[in-house]
């Protein structure tokens, strides 16, 4: 026991048979199973655990829960290094390696603690006032040094080797908080027949009951209820789990810490998205500190925390204690300290004290000072003495422990996250949750019921009501009563009295002086106060500082607490590792990848793959050239001179059937489809309701009532959804069914002068003659027992065929085409060559159909003619869309030999000032092997005529190239290559 000098000889909820070794700043220490890192440190007599954020003041353990502002440590090494963890929330584990933060070179001697000497200058807004200056120049220079000096722990630079999970879960009744109220609610809701999830951030259930001595009536109650809950088949007990967020639809975000599971290769943390039918908030309350000079010295602790360390962990943090309080609750800490052998002095702010308290105090030999507060503390790295001030003369009392209690604040964070403002209740001088939405209930001290009996009773009722809300109404046995000799926490406002530095927010180093300064400078609203002083902006989100700060501001303004209000609470309640939110969606699992049925062949045959949306497509084939620029030009040549093969499985494919199918197409395409003959295909353009071009593609009439539509790869999902929208909402009378068949068909394009010979060799059973299958014709057959469709369509401008085959036979069909095509010079080509071929032919694609262009802009107005009665027809006639000076599609050709065009270049007239948006821009460019020059497509203002010269300026490439406006169709304007 010598290694745990502050550990009591017996008691506590620790397993003395299981000692655990851990290290803190390199020292080897021991604790026991059942300890937190904080309790083990205290047991070892470690009182100094960190340095503060701004002034680098020495700090000790302040609390025993999630509200801890001071005792932040870094855990682990290498990739597992995790900073800013509150030692009070860390379950001690064998081999735990912890380090203190924000100190250099060591915790005991910290160079920057000199900051305290400069403290008069380091007030709120100091950095901005001093370093910002009239320009940002000064700040840019100093920022680096300032950031280095401030801050908390350092994050790991290595990748995190651990696994995380995201889980989806459901419950009828979710109960946040496993204290007496939550336990009681769980028992009632489970008895009523509800599926219950009981969520507790601690590794033990019980809440404040854990601070009662083992063997007490409260401990027996806890044991009985826990055993009963474990016996239910419909209760999920979720310890080590924090409800960090409340979301719409009664959804809770939970983070479970399972460091012990890591060794077994399981997830270290699990983020659970819990969808509940009803929620009971039994999240308890957090004790408020008192504000006085030097109230941040190591050895100053919340009174309830001292009681937890004493009774739950069998640690006596000090032998000479001063208990400073404004309420009855903290007296229990005084009594228990005295019973454990400490010399105790109580300083109560109230002038009149209950006789029962005084009787018990005198029995235990406790010195009592009524109407007294702590004026100041003495001591640096540990508290040495407290100066008490009251009605009489000031007295100084030697001490090594100061227990403070300024009353309690209900934990209203979660219930406020959806924008329901907490409501002030005068009788408890605190904020309780605002009105609950349907299906939400509150119980215990979270809603201001501060006695254990009240927590049990309100929990019981909330459990029954929540279960009933979910329709579970089996009879429920009466609540298990607990008669604990309890001292209610009555409120008495603590008015800060400070001569030196009196801290309100320990973590952000905000003092009463900062609040006074903010008030003087006009930052009176709590939201301004928060941003000006950084109050409440630490990792603890001001769990202990919120109320003292706003009551201080209220006092300065002469306003009431409700007039002053609270700041906004946002998720998460406690910090969450990004890894837990990501779960397994990391690296290549970050988002899905879509592969075509021919993907493996591409990879095996030297394709450089390119991500296009979620799809992986061949960019170019390395066999055609060393790099993309060399390869795409070579691939274009195969297509123009022999034959090329392209995987177009990514096109959106929609099967359209029904007696009114033709009418649907006639409405959604700007050009007519009603009279398309069976067995023929047509290019179609769709508009949005606002008259802008939406997408283009081809649709083939397979039969009288059946069509096969293709869309662009990018718009496949949007077109499908739009068709469904129109059928569901606008034209429910149309007898049409639309089905996405994108994944059912593999698709490949065979293009080039020898394409027909290749196809004929591959599919000898089909008649592919010009008469049987003319341009825009369709034929079908079988390949390998799967359906085969061939549509004669061209994107490249060459004679070309689109071959569709059942997806599972896609690779076999591709291999067949490659094999029989080889003697004809057929080679595969990638998307870069595909894009280049269409530029030569003047076909528009994504860069031109950019959500801003009309049919006329793209030179497609002739397709529509005088037709009307299609989607987008009315609004496409808006005056601004008919302006003759609108930018329209043109071709661009370099004027000077050896120059090249760049996509995105801005177009100016020669001699014009090269500023602003110019007359237009280049949308697509390619080298044209047929023309031996760079050509491009552009959108150019209507007043720059064909034949004129422009300058294409690309500022980032520092280019200005002379180009001539030409027809966008660079090759075969009559379309002779397509036919015959």
């Amino acid at each position, binding site marked *: 026991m010598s290694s745990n000098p502050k550990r009591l000889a017996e008691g506590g909820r620790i397993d003395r048979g299981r000692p655990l070794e851990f290290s803190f700043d390199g020292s080897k220490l021991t604790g026991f199973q059942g300890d937190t890192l904080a309790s083990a440190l205290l047991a070892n007599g470690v009182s100094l655990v960190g340095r503060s954020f701004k002034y680098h003041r020495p700090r000790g353990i302040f609390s025993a829960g999630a509200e801890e502002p001071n005792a932040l440590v870094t855990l682990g090494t290498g990739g597992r290094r995790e900073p800013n963890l509150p030692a009070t929330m860390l379950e001690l584990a064998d081999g735990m390696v912890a380090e203190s933060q924000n100190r250099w070179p060591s915790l005991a001697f910290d160079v920057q603690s000199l900051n305290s000497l400069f403290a008069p200058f380091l007030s709120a807004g100091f950095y901005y006032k001093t370093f910002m200056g009239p320009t940002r120049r000064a700040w840019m220079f100093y920022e680096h040094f300032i950031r280095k000096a401030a801050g908390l722990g350092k994050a790991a630079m290595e990748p995190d080797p651990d696994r995380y999970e995201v889980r989806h879960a459901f419950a009828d009744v979710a109960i946040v908080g496993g204290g007496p109220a939550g336990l009681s609610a769980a028992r009632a809701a489970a008895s009523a027949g509800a599926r219950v999830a009981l969520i507790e951030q601690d590794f033990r259930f019980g809440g404040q009951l854990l601070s009662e001595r083992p063997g007490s009536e409260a401990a027996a109650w806890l044991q009985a209820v826990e055993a009963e809950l474990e016996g239910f088949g419909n209760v999920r007990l979720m310890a080590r789990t924090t409800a960090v967020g409340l*979301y719409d639809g009664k959804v809770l975000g939970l983070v479970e810490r399972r460091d012990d599971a890591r060794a077994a290769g399981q997830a270290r943390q699990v983020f659970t998205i819990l969808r509940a039918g009803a929620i009971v908030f039994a999240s308890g309350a957090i004790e408020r500190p008192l504000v006085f000079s030097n109230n941040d010295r190591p050895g100053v602790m919340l009174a309830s925390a001292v009681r937890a360390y004493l009774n739950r962990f069998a640690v006596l943090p000090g032998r000479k204690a001063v208990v400073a309080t404004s309420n009855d609750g903290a007296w229990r800490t005084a009594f228990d300290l005295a019973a454990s052998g400490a010399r105790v002095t109580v300083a109560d702010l109230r002038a009149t004290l209950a006789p029962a308290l005084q009787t018990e105090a005198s029995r235990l030999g406790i010195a009592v000072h009524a109407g007294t507060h702590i004026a100041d503390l003495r001591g640096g790295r540990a508290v040495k003495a407290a100066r008490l001030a009251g009605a009489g003369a000031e007295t100084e009392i030697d001490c090594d422990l100061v227990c403070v209690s300024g009353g309690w604040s209900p934990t209203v964070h979660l219930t406020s996250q*959806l924008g329901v403002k907490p409501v002030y209740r005068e009788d408890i001088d605190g904020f309780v949750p605002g009105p609950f939405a349907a299906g939400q209930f509150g119980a215990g001290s979270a809603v201001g019921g501060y006695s254990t009996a009240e927590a049990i009773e309100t929990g019981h009722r909330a459990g029954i009501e929540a279960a009933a809300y979910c329709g579970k109404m089996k009879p429920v046995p009466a609540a298990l009563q607990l008669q604990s000799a309890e001292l209610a926490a009555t409120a008495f406002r603590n008015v800060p009295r400070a001569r030196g530095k009196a801290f309100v927010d320990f973590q952000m180093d905000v003092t009463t002086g900062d609040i006074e300064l903010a008030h003087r400078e006009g930052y009176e609203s709590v939201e301004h106060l928060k941003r000006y002083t950084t109050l409440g902006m630490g990792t603890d989100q001001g769990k202990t500082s919120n109320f003292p700060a706003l009551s201080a501001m209220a006092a300065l303004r002469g306003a009431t607490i409700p007039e002053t209000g609270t700041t906004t609470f946002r998720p998460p309640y406690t910090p969450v590792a990004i890894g837990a939110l990501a779960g397994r969606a990391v690296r290549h699992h970050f988002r899905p990848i879509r592969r075509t049925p021919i993907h493996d062949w591409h990879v095996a045959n030297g394709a450089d793959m390119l991500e296009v949306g979620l799809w992986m497509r061949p960019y170019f084939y390395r066999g055609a050239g060393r790099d993309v620029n060399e390869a795409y030009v070579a691939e274009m040549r195969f297509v123009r001179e022999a034959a090329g093969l392209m995987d177009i499985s990514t096109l959106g494919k929609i099967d359209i059937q029904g007696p009114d199918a033709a009418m649907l197409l006639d*409405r959604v395409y700007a050009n007519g489809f009603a009279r398309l003959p069976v067995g023929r295909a047509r290019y179609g353009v769709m508009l949005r309701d*606002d008259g802008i071009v939406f997408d283009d593609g081809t649709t083939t009439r397979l039969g009288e009532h059946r069509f096969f539509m293709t869309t662009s790869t990018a718009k496949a999902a949007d077109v499908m*959804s739009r068709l469904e929208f129109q059928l*569901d909402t606008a034209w429910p009378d149309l007898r049409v069914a639309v089905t996405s068949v994108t994944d059912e068909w593999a698709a490949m394009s065979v293009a080039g002068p020898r394409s027909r010979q290749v196809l004929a060799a591959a599919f000898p059973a089909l008649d592919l003659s010009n008469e049987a299958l003319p341009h825009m014709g369709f034929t079908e057959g079988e390949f390998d027992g799967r359906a085969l469709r061939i549509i004669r369509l061209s994107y490249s401008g060459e004679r070309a065929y689109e071959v569709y085959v059942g997806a599972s036979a896609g690779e076999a069909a591709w291999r067949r085409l490659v094999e029989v095509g080889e003697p004809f010079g057929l080679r595969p080509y990638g998307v870069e060559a595909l894009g280049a071929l269409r530029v030569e032919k003047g076909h528009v694609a994504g860069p031109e159909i950019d959500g801003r262009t009309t049919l006329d802009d793209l030179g497609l107005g002739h397709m529509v003619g005088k037709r009307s009665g*299609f*989607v987008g027809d*009315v609004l496409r006639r808006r005056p601004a869309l008919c302006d003759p000076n609108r930018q329209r599609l043109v071709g661009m050709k370099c004027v000077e030999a050896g120059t090249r065009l760049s996509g995105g270049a801005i177009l100016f007239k020669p001699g014009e000032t090269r500023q602003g948006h110019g007359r237009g821009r280049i949308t697509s460019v390619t080298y044209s092997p047929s023309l031996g020059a760079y050509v491009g497509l552009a959108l150019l203002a209507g007043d720059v005529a064909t034949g004129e010269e422009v300058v294409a300026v690309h500022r980032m490439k520092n280019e200005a190239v002379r180009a001539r406006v030409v027809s966008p169709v660079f090759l075969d304007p009559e379309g002779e290559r397509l036919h015959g």
Partner: protein
Amino acid sequence: MLRIDCPCCGPRDHDEFRYGGDASVIRPALDDADFEAWYRYVFVRKNPAGLHREHWQHVLGCRQWLIVERDTRNHAITSVALARRPPTKKPPAKKSPPRKSPQ
């Protein structure tokens, strides 16, 4: 996270759905050449703080377009119905019982 009670699939997370805009605007008939009507349908929105009628499609489920009534102040969803069969608010006139008091 919103939970949308799909009439076909039951309550599901909103990330299975696709938002499709205001369902309270009236789409003009296809052959309606009234520019103002189309302009109002495409561009003019009331956007009140309160109850909205919205189009949502259950894209990762039944793919039905739905009309969801949602309060934008608290995200409470008061009704979900198939867009294809909008709920008939009034029974056909001939079947309605005679009014007890004159209006």
